[in-house]
């Protein structure tokens, strides 16, 4: 580390900016990366960190700024040229060639960008074998990817990224979907890249998960740098704490005993879900009482959306999900929604080319004209901005307005349970406050039951009666929001 700081940087990013239409995803980002250093690029969902990495790699063309690799500006070059200069990228999602063996998959990464290579030579095979052993795939190199466990597929991604001996290795969410034991093994591998003198750039959601691994961290929020420094410095930084944990949180929890239903309204019992080989939910049990506001807090990839999709009937699962004591398995998603479990998905899923009013009317389709008018009037009281925007096309709304519309449309279905999946995703703080107030009013003026999934703790805690913490597919904490910061908060920096 000390010797590393004296070297000139291998990679210098200066004023990197990426705009998508009117949205600025990355704003004037600066960072230096030295050989033999692991650098973390950290930020909550929608903060622009992944876009920044793609812009460095050339997958997204930067709108402005320089990416200087060993003195040469590579910004604006296509990805394949940047890769050939000495960059390797580890993708979060692996799509290997399923008809080829692991070894052949690694060999692909070693091939030259030439149309005249008709036969792979022996040296190439030997090099591929060496790499397979290097990342711990030695025992399975002659097998085909579909027969491998999830962690080995991630190893294959690492192998491909380092195949051509890159100077800079970019890693997108190194630990997504891995078990704790596997996280240890992968940390060791990434450290060994550093020890070979490579510069490693990690992108992840929170500081804690990579704190033990990184030399320096840059925390970003809404496309901009907040602070750069050692992991512990960054975790102590006031702004970082506010972004992740919020200030002093005032909670208004009602004790669980105050809810009168003897059998909880919604019960999720020992539910497990697999996506192929990756386990997304591991024996999860939660319950929600009638009229209760329950928050499920968890980082990206913890399994929140999977949990909600299982409840909504979109996914096959083991275990049981009961509403009012009745099993939901076998009920169609449409029927589940109609009978009162309404989900407002993370991706919002608005009908973009329909007006605000049409979106809301669709939500209230099953109501009589009179009831629909009444529900609409009530909704406009809750979200006055939607009344003003009635005639506007949904896709032209701002992010915050779109979120309000998504919630509004769900409310038009007169849900018994409203499931909100990451409503704060990518929204500015001022919008969060408006949403927060609306939720507060919802809680105070109606009997509605709410199940909220969030990684933004500031938003999830104030309204909650009870909180669950979901981590690596498991519920690891349950309790009163007032105790959260003390007992479980450290994981959210």
């Amino acid at each position, binding site marked *: 580390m000390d010797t590393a700081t004296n070297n000139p940087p291998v990679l210098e990013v200066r004023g990197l900016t990426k705009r998508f239409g009117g949205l600025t995803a990355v704003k004037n980002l600066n960072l230096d990366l030295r050989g033999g250093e692991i650098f973390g690029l950290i930020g909550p969902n929608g903060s622009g960190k992944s876009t920044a990495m793609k812009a460095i*790699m*050339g*997958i997204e063309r930067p709108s402005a700024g320089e990416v200087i690799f060993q003195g040469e500006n590579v910004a604006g070059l*296509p*990805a*394949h040229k940047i*890769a*050939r200069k000495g*960059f*390797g*990228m580890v*993708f979060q999602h692996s*799509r290997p*060639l399923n*008809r*080829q063996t692991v070894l*052949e998959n690694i*060999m*692909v*990464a070693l*091939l030259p*960008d030439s*149309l005249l*290579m*008709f*036969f*792979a030579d022996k040296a190439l095979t030997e090099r591929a074998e060496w790499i397979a052993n290097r990342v711990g795939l030695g025992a399975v190199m002659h097998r085909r990817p579909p027969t491998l466990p999830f962690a080995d597929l991630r190893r294959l991604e690492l192998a*491909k990224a380092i*195949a*051509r001996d890159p100077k800079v290795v970019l890693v997108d969410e190194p630990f997504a979907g891995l078990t704790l034991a596997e996280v240890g093994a992968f940390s060791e591998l990434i450290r060994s890249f550093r020890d070979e003198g490579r510069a490693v750039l990690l992108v992840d959601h929170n500081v804690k998960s990579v704190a033990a691994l990184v030399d320096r961290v840059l925390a970003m929020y809404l496309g901009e740098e907040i602070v750069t420094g050692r992991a512990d410095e960054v975790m102590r930084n006031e702004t970082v704490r506010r972004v992740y944990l919020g200030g002093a949180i005032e909670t208004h929890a009602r004790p669980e005993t105050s809810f009168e239903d003897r059998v909880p309204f919604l019960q999720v019992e020992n539910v497990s879900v697999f996506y192929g080989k990756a386990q997304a939910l591991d024996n999860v049990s939660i319950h929600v009482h009638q009229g209760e506001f329950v928050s499920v807090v968890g980082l990206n990839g913890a399994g929140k959306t999977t949990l909600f999709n299982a409840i909504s009937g979109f996914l096959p699962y083991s275990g049981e999900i009961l509403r009012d004591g009745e099993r939901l398995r076998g009920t169609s998603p449409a029927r589940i929604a109609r009978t009162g479990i309404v989900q407002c998905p993370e991706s919002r899923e608005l009908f973009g080319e329909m007006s605000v009013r049409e979106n809301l009317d669709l939500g209230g389709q099953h109501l009589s004209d009179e009831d629909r008018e009444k529900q609409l009037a009530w909704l406009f009281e809750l979200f006055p901005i939607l009344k003003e925007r009635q005639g506007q096309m949904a896709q032209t709304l701002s992010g915050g307005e779109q979120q309000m519309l998504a919630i509004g449309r769900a409310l038009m279905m007169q849900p018994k349970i409203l499931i909100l999946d990451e409503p704060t995703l990518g929204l500015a703080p001022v919008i969060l406050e408006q949403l927060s107030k609306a939720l507060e009013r919802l809680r105070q003026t109606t009997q509605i039951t709410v199940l909220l999934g969030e990684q933004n703790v500031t938003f999830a805690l104030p309204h909650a009666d009870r909180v669950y913490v979901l981590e690596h597919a498991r519920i690891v904490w349950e309790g009163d929001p007032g105790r959260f910061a003390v007992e479980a908060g450290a994981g959210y920096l």
Partner: protein
Amino acid sequence: MLDFFKSRLFFVSLAVVIIAATLPLYVSGYVLGLLTVAYYFGVFAMAWDLLFGFAGEVNFGPTFLIGVGAYTAGILNNQYGWSVYLCILLGALASVIAGFVLALPALRVRGPYFGLTTLVAVLMLQNFVVVFADLTGGEIGLTIPDVISIDAGVNYWIALGFMTISAIVLYGLSQSPIGLVLQASGQDPVQAGALGFNIVKHKLAAFVVSAFFSGLSGALLVFYFGTASVGTVVDVAVGVNVIVAAVLGGRRTVLGAALGAIFLIVAGEFLRPTGELATFIVSAVALLVVLFFPGGFLGAALSREAR
């Protein structure tokens, strides 16, 4: 690569080719004629599979490439009386150039738009043929003065030899490092780019190779028929048959595509007594195979061997 010469697929293919080569000694000219057409069709389907199965690009217009090759060769022979072999070669070259000009802009658009572009190209070619009837023979068809040979056996051997050579080249290419890069580009273009591969270059090369074999085969076919017409080498329905043949035989197998083509042509002929029903029956079989054996004939056979 060397493993291939020890694989069962190699010995089976070798045996099939040897048996096929002896057919003119004991089957009728009628059967030979049928198989000759089927073999040229087999090359169409193999060339198509290189694009779809490996580069991951659906070319809805295989007949654009075939038609350009066929008509260029035919028109040159008809207008100038140049030698058959020169015309065939120029036909293949014309197809390569046309393919390149079409693919260069088309590969820059993503997803279904590439396929739509190729489809429009077929319709344009079809219109061109009809409008410039003086040159192309229009809807009646173009008469071609020369033929390669009038002997059914010789024609058959040429078609078989041509299909065999095409199969060796196309299959070899698909199994070579270039084939691997093509597959990677087809499966995940972003990642292939990040691994340092110029995807457009590789896909363009695949398109050019596909165009060469399609055009060559198209040109050979018209010199066998002695006529070129929209209905035999340009029509969208012909293109659909090529696609069905490739999918039926097995995506990403190259060799399977030839099997599929031979099956389609031969089955169509055998069912001819059923009249209009023939097309229906063949289509129904194709549909069933696609629904229940998405790997196709060869895909199903190979996966059983792998297991």
